[in-house]
């Protein structure tokens, strides 16, 4: 085996430096790519969320207009019509819940609030542009003691039990509980 001379050591050292430099550059580049991709993803989500809110506002604007004009019955029919194309849309459920509450259909209103919050937690999120937190809080504060008392008085009633369960669910979501 021939002895390594100074030139071999220099060449080998230079080669090692080049390999290390390439590895370093690859690692740094990948890191930058990953953070750029994450930034893109977050921005995409934000844009999609803003677009969704804008879309919901536009879609349900006729319902809001009818409500403002005091035409709750026509607003409910409009919601039926929209539900044909967008069934299980949480925003439709929220509007339905609010109108039914105004009409005095309390149990059905609670059912719709529960469905809406199950579909989209934004409605109990203080920071969300969709938030309905204060309305839901008022409903729970007012109706929970009432339905608890009614259920105690009539423990056989499955309908009352169902409504009470719904109110407890809303209470739990308001306090940040998981499903």
């Amino acid at each position, binding site marked *: 085996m021939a002895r390594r001379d100074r030139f071999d050591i220099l060449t080998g050292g230079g080669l090692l430096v080049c390999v290390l430099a390439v590895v370093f550059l690859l690692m740094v580049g990948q890191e930058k790519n990953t953070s750029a991709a994450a930034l893109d993803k977050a921005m995409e989500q934000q844009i999609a969320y803003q677009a969704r809110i804008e879309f919901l506002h536009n879609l349900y604007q006729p319902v809001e207009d009818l409500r403002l004009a005091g035409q709750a019955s026509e607003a409910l*029919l409009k919601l*039926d*019509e929209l539900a044909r194309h967008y069934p299980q849309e949480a925003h439709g459920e929220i509007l339905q819940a609010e109108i039914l509450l105004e009409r005095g*259909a309390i149990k059905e209103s609670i059912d719709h609030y529960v469905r809406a919050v199950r579909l989209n937690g934004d409605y109990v999120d203080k920071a969300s542009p969709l938030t309905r937190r204060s309305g839901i809080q008022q409903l729970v504060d007012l109706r929970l003691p009432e339905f608890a008392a009614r259920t105690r008085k009539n423990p056989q009633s499955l309908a009352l039990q169902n409504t009470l369960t719904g109110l407890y669910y809303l209470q739990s979501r308001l306090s940040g509980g998981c499903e």
Partner: protein
Amino acid sequence: MNFFQNRYALIIILLLISLLTACQPEGTRQKMRIGYMNCNSEEETLKRFYPLTSYLSQKLGVDFELMPVDTQDFSERFAAGEFEFTHTNSLVYLIMHEESQLQLLATEKRGRYGSYTSGSIISRKGSGIKTLADLKGKRMVFGPQLAPSGFLAQYDTMLQGGIDPEKDIAYYAIPAGSFKHEKVVYGVYFGQYDVGTAPSLDLELMTGAGKITADDFNIVAESPIIPYCTFGASKDLDPTLVENFRKALVELTEKDVVSYQGEELKVLASAWIDGYETLEDSDYDLLRAMAKRANMPPYQEF
């Protein structure tokens, strides 16, 4: 030894008795009749309620016979003892409760108001008829007279709004034959009448089915919500049977099925029902007040 032998013999005898009573085959069981008020037609009533009746028979071990009954004849035939259980609209329940002490069993849930419903007064969009005051001098079509959400609720809403249907409108008609509620809606839609009285549930279902759109009509007024269709039981029945009947209804879920004519059918879906709920008779007080104001049975005075 004798003591134990006797005890075993007694247990075996009791077991045999319970098996014999529990497994009564159809045809040898107690027979009872349920009168169902025809909503749209007899054919529709039979189709909707055979599976439910069959389910109740299986659940309660009683052979229930389904009897479709015309609305106008209902209270008279019930008073004559033609059937023991009733399924009617809430006004007919009220009449029989007053006249024959019919017991309230359970109230049907269907549509957005659950076990309640309401009546709407509609006009065609673009007609310019938007308020109760606009009804004066107009041609109007009502639903059948004993329909709480097709006649009474709207009649009362008009009275409460200062419009007397007997004096202030040009004339009113009631469609003949079956499917009266849809005839009212289409009568207004096609311009045969200026204004009509439709159950809000029918508007909801027709809109949901795409038969009409929300933009086709003005809702001139909507009544307060009142109880929907109701099951009742004769006052003379065995309280245990009545309670079991009520329980069977309120415990029904959308998953419950019944074997009917070789098929497994979903009971509630077959009957177009979302479920049943136990209401108090006092929940019908608003309807009572409406019937009194409108001078309708069971409070009609001549």
